[in-house]
Each structure stands twice: as structure tokens, then as C-alpha cells.
């Protein structure tokens, strides 16, 4: 997997407030970055800027490779069984082997449960399953550990390590400590405007 993500001199403004400025970031295949900072400092905005969903106030982002995003929004049809809801994204992503993600994330028993019955942790695991099925090199993760139990956290940290080992990039915005293969941290407070 070949991937690259480069952000140059990013600044982010929300409303009248400048959240951060002068943030540059270069990631090549295999890189993992932990973005830390207090609530409201702009972690989610940074992830959305890197994903191309939010225009930066200043600066530019360049990416090579497809992007997979996991944030607090599930993007699955609440009334459908989990398996059917995930199948829509699998079809779009052209994913053949869905069993692997289900097994890794321990979701196989939940496939016929409607999405709105799932617990917080199970919903998070469903979002991560969508990410795995997408099989894309750049992972942008916004608080991926929220709601996961210790065992699932460990399992997911192992998945990130595996992803980076095979040449992927993982950018993780999280206020919780997370074990990443290359412990590189961006403290957003240093770039606060």
C-alpha cells in the first residue's frame, strides 16, 4: 500500500475563533500520529480538514491514497439490521471479504440486530468494521476508542499496528492514551492561536 498525507501550514477558523495555525504534518506509508489536546481545541476540525470535508482557513492538504474516516457519526441506517446497513458501504467499496472485519471486531453475532439497538461500544465497532471493509491506506480516526471496552481497545490498537505495518497511515485524534506503532504525537495546544 502506497500512501502519503502532507499538510502545510494549516490554520482552522470556526466562526470568529481561530482554533490553531501554522500546523504542518507529513506522513508517509507506515506512519501513525496521535493528535492530542483538550476539548474544543480543534482535533475533530483537523481530522475533517485532512479528510477534505472542511476547508482550512489557510494552508493546504495533499493526499495520495483513499481515505477512511471514523468519527462520532455512524452513517448506518438505524432501522436496518447491522449486516444489511454495512452491506450498502461494502457494495460501494467493492468489498468481498467482510467476514474478516466481523471476526476481528467480534461483530458476527450482531449482524441481524437493528442498528438502533446497538450499544455505544458496539456502534463504534460497527463504524470500525466499515473502515476495515473499505481497505484504504489512510485512516483518519476521531476518538476511535470512545465507548470501547479494554479488550476491544487492545484489539483495535493491534489493528492499527497491522495497518501501519502493511504500509497504511493512521492519524488518531484522541484525548485518551493510545498505543501506536510509531509514537509520534502532535499536541494541538502548541499550535493554538
Amino acid at each position, binding site marked *: 500500500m502506497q500512501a502519503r498525507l502532507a499538510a502545510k501550514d494549516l490554520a482552522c477558523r470556526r466562526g470568529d475563533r481561530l482554533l490553531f495555525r501554522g500546523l504542518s504534518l507529513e506522513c508517509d506509508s507506515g506512519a501513525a500520529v496521535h493528535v492530542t489536546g483538550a476539548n474544543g481545541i480543534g482535533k475533530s476540525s483537523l481530522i475533517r480538514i485532512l*479528510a*477534505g*470535508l*472542511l*476547508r482550512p482557513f489557510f494552508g493546504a492538504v495533499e493526499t495520495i491514497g*483513499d*481515505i*477512511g*474516516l471514523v*468519527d462520532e*457519526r*455512524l*452513517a*448506518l*441506517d*438505524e*432501522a*436496518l439490521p447491522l449486516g444489511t446497513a454495512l452491506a*450498502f*458501504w461494502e*457494495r*460501494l*467499496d467493492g468489498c468481498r471479504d467482510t467476514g474478516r472485519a466481523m471476526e476481528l471486531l467480534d461483530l458476527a453475532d450482531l449482524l441481524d440486530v437493528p442498528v438502533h439497538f446497538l450499544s455505544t461500544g458496539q456502534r463504534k465497532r460497527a463504524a470500525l468494521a*466499515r473502515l476495515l471493509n473499505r481497505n484504504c491506506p489512510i485512516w483518519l480516526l476521531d476518538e476511535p476508542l470512545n465507548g470501547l471496552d479494554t479488550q476491544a481497545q487492545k484489539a483495535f490498537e493491534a489493528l492499527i499496528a497491522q495497518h501501519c505495518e502493511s504500509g497504511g497511515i493512521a492519524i488518531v485524534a484522541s484525548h485518551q492514551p493510545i498505543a501506536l506503532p510509531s509514537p509520534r504525537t502532535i499536541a494541538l495546544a502548541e499550535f493554538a492561536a
Partner: protein
Amino acid sequence: MIGTLLRRDLGLLMPGGRGGAGVLPLLFFLAVAMLYPFAVGPDAQLLARTGGGVIWVAALLAAILPLEKLVTADLDAGVFDQLHLRGASEELAMASRLLAHWLAFAPLLLLATPPAAALLGLGGETLRTVLLGLLAGTPGLAAVGLIVAALTASLRGGAALAGLMVIPLAVPILIFGAGALSRPESSGLLLTAAISLGLCAIAPFAAGAAIRSAREG
């Protein structure tokens, strides 16, 4: 990709689907046709003369009912963000939604028009004009509805506002569509169809731009 999108949108919006208004617009439409004779009395001539216009107003108002769930739920759930990352533009998503929205309410309304016409005592010729007019006008109503639903999706209380915003935008369709009832030539129907086609051509772009701007907000 468009096939997959359309399949999901139809599953959401078609009657019996999990996200749409179901048969509510149909029942609303028939209810108006049923109540109108009660309100104005059993004057068959009056009913026959005004019934076509009543059907048009009922159709316009029924088209507002599905708007609340048309865009908001998917915007809140981040579906459009995930589609954007997969290279599906907002315009494509909105084009698919427009088609699904029209299929979900217009054929039902057209099916319900003959019984509604019977309730109002309309003649065969009037019924034909109303049916042709609705066939020409409902795509335009769907397009206006989609644009307005996308514009108001990120607002609190957007659904009520959407209903109010659709009405002035739909007035041209109503004027020419219902106007065809009182003029024998077919120019009214053709103008309705022209407005509809124009609106359908604009709608995916206008609604797509609305979704993108909601994302920035």
C-alpha cells in the same frame, strides 16, 4: 455506484420503507378530496368546476409531507461525508435522491387521482387534464422539495420552514398546471413540463451545494 445509491434511497423513501413518509401523502391527498365536498356542499356544478384546482392544491401540499426526512437524517448521520470520501459527489447523491423521492410519492398520487376525481364528481376530460398536469408537474414539485429540504436540513426546526418555502417556489407549477384546466389548448401542460424539467436539472446542483455548505457550517 448510482445503482447502489438509488437502491438505498428507494429503500428509504418508498412506501413501507424505513425513512420516508410512507403512504401519508396519499392519505392526506384523498382526505382533502373527501373533505372539500363536505365543506362547500353538494353543488355538483361547483364541485366539477373547482374540483381540478382542489386536486392540484392537495397534491402540492401532499408533496410537502415527505420533506422532513428527505435529507436531514442522512446529513446528521454523516452519510454524505462518507459518500464524499468515496468519490460520490453531493450532486450524484442528490440526483439519486430526487429520482427516489419522485418515485415514492408521485405514482401514488397519480393512482389516487381517479378516486379523488370521483369524490369531486369531475368529468372524464377534466380528469385527463389533471392527470397529465400532475404527471408534468410532480417532477418539478419533487425538485423544489429536494432543494428546500437540503437548504433547511441543518437548521433547527427546518422541516416547518421547508413547508413554507416550497409554497412560493411551487406557484409557477400550480399556475400553469391548474391553469390548463380552464384553457382548452395544451400550452399550459407544456409549460408545466418545461418548468419541471428546468427545476429537475437545477435541483441536484442546488441541493448538492446546500449539503456542502451545511458541512462547512
